[in-house]
Each structure stands twice: as structure tokens, then as C-alpha cells.
């Protein structure tokens, strides 16, 4: 439903977005990952028609953003970075303004307003000017504004930035509830967020698309994926662990005493290790199967070019 072809954006001579191409289908919850300044926000600004692309094309529901921006913007809910709003308005006035713009009328309007206020939990602050709200509430007002017309496409630029863990959880829940048949694009640099809500990850660095697949595949890129770590209550001979079938390598962290065993590619070593530990009665306190470390993969992917170049 969203189709991007060879999208580029230059600022003077700086290439903010460099030849991006991708398609996003309904049902996709895409996590846009990347370091700061990677081009995430610029890409989102182009998708929403705020910035014109320097090169390339964007088609949304088979319409080009060049010629049909207004029609496309009707189908999009957008939370810009920093959740800007009109600070002198109260939350209630602001949502009504958005409802006006979105042409919501009559009973449907009432129902949508009620639903959104309830979902985003704005009931207590409806009559307060937005300027006087805390950061978390401002973010929620921005979210309410974006989902008010129940759009098919939801684009959220760092929706959980500056929220406390409870609020983050709440926003994730909200996104999960929304997105059966919709397209959701979230930009973030919080990795757990992607693992928690997205079914597709796109990593952008230096304006280029470096990775585009599911969070599971991203996890499997990590050498920690399916690795087993254990902690001993006192020193014991564990050299035999490294000789086990399927174990590629053993690493011991001198500081924490954490032992990590890495499998050979595609091998599962947890059971073998578990058995070995039980048989030898090794003094093992904890034994964990690692699921892969996203931050490490993220670093690898986003800094790869720099290292090579």
C-alpha cells in the first residue's frame, strides 16, 4: 500500500536520505531504526508530504504524493517529532479543531472523540491548555490527534520519547490494539520497542536502508542468539563445556564471572549443556538461553560502512 522507489533527499550537498526503496503492506507494523541523524525523520516527513523528495517517488494507495498529497494526507495519521501542537488551546479545543479538519461530523465525531480520549487517557486534562501539560501528556495529545480519524496509515515519529516506562508500555499497547489491518510506521532508537510491537524492522544509517526483515531475523544476526550463559556459585572446572558437541566458543567475563557459550551456526546447545551440568553436578546458579542482543546487532549494522570505509 506504501511504495517507495529510489527516494533521496539532499540538503545542499548533504545527503539525508540516499536511494531508499521499499514497500509496506497493510498489517505491517514497521519499526524505523537508526542512529540520530540517520534520515528516519526526513523519510517520514517525505511520506507525509511535508517535505518534497529530491529524487524518487512515493506512492500511497496507488496515488503519487506529488499530485495527490491532500488526498493521501486524509488517510494518514501523523505524529511529528516532539509532538507539536497549538499550546494556547486546551486539549478539548485542539481535538475539536482536528476533528473539524478531518471532517468528522455528528454522532461519529462524538464517538471518535470519546473513544480517543478514553484510549489515550486524556479525560483528566481536557480543559487544560496544552502548554501547561507534562511531556507525557503532550505526547499523548499528539497521539490522540493522529488516531482521531481512525486512519489506515499511522506514522509516529518517536512516539515514546520522554515517556516513563508505564506510559511507554501504554503507548505500545495502544499501537498493538490499533493495527490489525493498518500500516503503522514507528521511528525510534529504543530497540526493545521494536521487538515489543513491530513485525518488521527497517534499519537506516547514513540515509541508506541497511536491514529490512522481522525482529526475529535481526535477533538471529546476533552471535548471542541461542548462546547459553551460566554463572557458578564457586570456582569449578568447566573446561569440558567448551568440548561439547555444537559449542563453538566459550567466553568468560573476568569481572562478572559470567560464562557464555556460543553455538556453531544453526546448532542448539542448551540441552547438551544442561545435561552436562546436571551429570557433573556443577555448581551452577543460573543457566540462561540468550535470545540475541539487539543493541550489538544494531551497532554492527549501523557502523559497518564506517568500519569498512
Amino acid at each position, binding site marked *: 500500500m506504501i511504495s517507495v522507489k529510489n527516494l533521496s533527499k539532499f540538503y545542499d550537498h548533504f545527503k539525508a536520505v540516499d536511494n531508499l526503496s521499499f514497500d509496506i503492506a497493510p498489517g505491517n507494523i514497521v519499526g524505523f531504526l537508526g542512529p540520530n541523524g540517520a534520515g528516519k525523520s526526513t523519510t517520514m516527513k517525505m511520506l507525509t508530504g511535508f517535505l518534497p523528495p529530491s529524487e524518487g517517488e512515493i506512492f500511497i494507495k496507488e496515488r503519487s504524493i506529488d499530485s495527490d498529497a491532500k488526498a493521501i*494526507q486524509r488517510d494518514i495519521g501523523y505524529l511529528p517529532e516532539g509532538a507539536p501542537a497549538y499550546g494556547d488551546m486546551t486539549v478539548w479545543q485542539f481535538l475539536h479543531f482536528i476533528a473539524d479538519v478531518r471532517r468528522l461530523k455528528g454522532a461519529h465525531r462524538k464517538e471518535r472523540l470519546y473513544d480517543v480520549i478514553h484510549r489515550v487517557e486524556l479525560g483528566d486534562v481536557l480543559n487544560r491548555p496544552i502548554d501547561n501539560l507534562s511531556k507525557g501528556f503532550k505526547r499523548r495529545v499528539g497521539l490522540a490527534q493522529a488516531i482521531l480519524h481512525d486512519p489506515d496509515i499511522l506514522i509516529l515519529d518517536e512516539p515514546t520519547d520522554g515517556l516513563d516506562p508505564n506510559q511507554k508500555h501504554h503507548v505500545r499497547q495502544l499501537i498493538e490494539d490499533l493495527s490489525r489491518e493498518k500500516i503503522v510506521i514507528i521511528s525510534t532508537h529504543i530497540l526493545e520497542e521494536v521487538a515489543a510491537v513491530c513485525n518488521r524492522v527497517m534499519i537506516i544509517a547514513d540515509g541508506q536502508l541497511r536491514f529490512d526483515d522481522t525482529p526475529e531475523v535481526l535477533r538471529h544476526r546476533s552471535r548471542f542468539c541461542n548462546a547459553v550463559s551460566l554463572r557458578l556459585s564457586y570456582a569449578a572446572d568447566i573446561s569440558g563445556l567448551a568440548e561439547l558437541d555444537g559449542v563453538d566458543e566459550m567466553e568468560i567475563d573476568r569481572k562478572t564471572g559470567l560464562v557464555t557459550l556460543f553455538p556453531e551456526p544453526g546448532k542448539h546447545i542448551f540441552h547438551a549443556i544442561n545435561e552436562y551440568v546436571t551429570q557433573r553436578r556443577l555448581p551452577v546458579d543460573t543457566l540462561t538461553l540468550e535470545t540475541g542482543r539487539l543493541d550489538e546487532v544494531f551497532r554492527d549494522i549501523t557502523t559497518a560502512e564506517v568500519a569498512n570505509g
Partner: protein
Amino acid sequence: MGNIWIVTKREFASFFATPVAYVFIAIFLMLSGIFTFFIGNLYERGQADLIPFFNFHPWLYLFLVPAIAMRSWAEERKSGSIELLMTLPISAAEAVLGKFIAAWLVLGLALALTFPLWLSVDFLGEPDHGIIVAAYIGSWLMAGAFLAISTCMSAFTRNQVVAFILAVVVCFLFVVSGSSIVLDAFQPWAGNLILDTVASFSFLSHFEAMAKGVLALNDVGYFFIIMVVWLYASLIVIEQKKAD
């Protein structure tokens, strides 16, 4: 059309949600009173008209209109809400017009609230009401021209102070372009045609007749053209620079 009205409504309400409109109207009424009675000598002239009142309008607008218009786009840019506005299904032209109309209505309201002057003159003598109505319309049109210039200056920058100063300077040039301040700069090298053209841009000369109640087509047309041109310029500036 609907979108323009939605933006106008929001902007108009926002003028009154903040002290901007109240302060503006209060200052406008005070200053116009002072100018009319103390400098314009309304009573001493002994004539039942409002010419002393209207004659000071260009100078009042010169400072007050840029003050009311300076936030219109500069603040959108500063707070980032321009990104929200421009990604809603509202076109830039609708947004420009909506904001302009809202501020113009505030100016109209301020002007309308000077009605006690009119009542006083009516009480003391027998003024020609047609002339006064025409002068009010003329003054409102001129306010619109000031406003269009100020809107455009506000679109240029995210800093309201810069917007205000730029607007005052450009408006000042338009106010005095018929006088020697501006014409002297052209005198040494420009031909008569250029001199006449520059002089004809003057707000003062176009308003002069209006203040006396003559709504000539060329004066009315002049102010409308100024509005259209500067609003169109604002539109271009916003389209080009919205993300800066």
C-alpha cells in the same frame, strides 16, 4: 472553502485565548483616542467629521499591525506545529488565507470598537455618515495591506522579533514611498516614470482620499492588489522554507 474557515476559527480563538487580541484592541483604542483628540484636535476644529481620527491610522497600523501578525507563521515554525498543519489535509494557501482573515477580523473588531467616536461626532453635530462608513472601509482595507506585508515577513523567520522589525521596515517604506525620504534615493538617477511608479505605491496617498470618504476604484484596487501580492509571496515563502 471549509478549510479556510476552520483555520480562521482556530486562529481567531487563539488571539483571544492569549492576551494578544485584548492588548492590541486596548492599545489601539487608547492611541487612536490620544491622536484624535490631542494631536488631531477633533474638538477644536469644530467640524463634524472624523478626518483627524482616520489621518493617524497609517501611523498606528505601522506599529500595531506587525505586532499582531508577527506570530502568525514565526510561531508555527518555532513550535514545530507547522509540520502538523502542513500534513493535515489543508493546503498551504488555505492556511495562509485562514490566518490572514482571522487577524484581519481582529483588526476589524478593533476598528469597530472605535464607534463611540462616531457617536460623539453624531451627538455634537451632523456628520455625513456615508463619508464615515467609506473611511472605515478604507481604513480596514489599508489595515489588510499592512497585515499581508507583515504576514509575509512572519513567514520568513522563526523569530518573532525579527518578523516584527522586518515588517515595520517594509511597511514604513510603503507608507512613505510618496515622500522625499524614499523618492530622494531615486531622484538622482531614475526617470520620471520610475519616480511616479514608486510614489504611487504610497499608502498615504491612496488612503488620503479614503479618509475623506472617497472610495475610488483605483485606491480600493490598490490595497487589494497589495494584499494578493504579499499573501501570494507568503505562500511561496512557506512552501519553500517550511522545513527550515
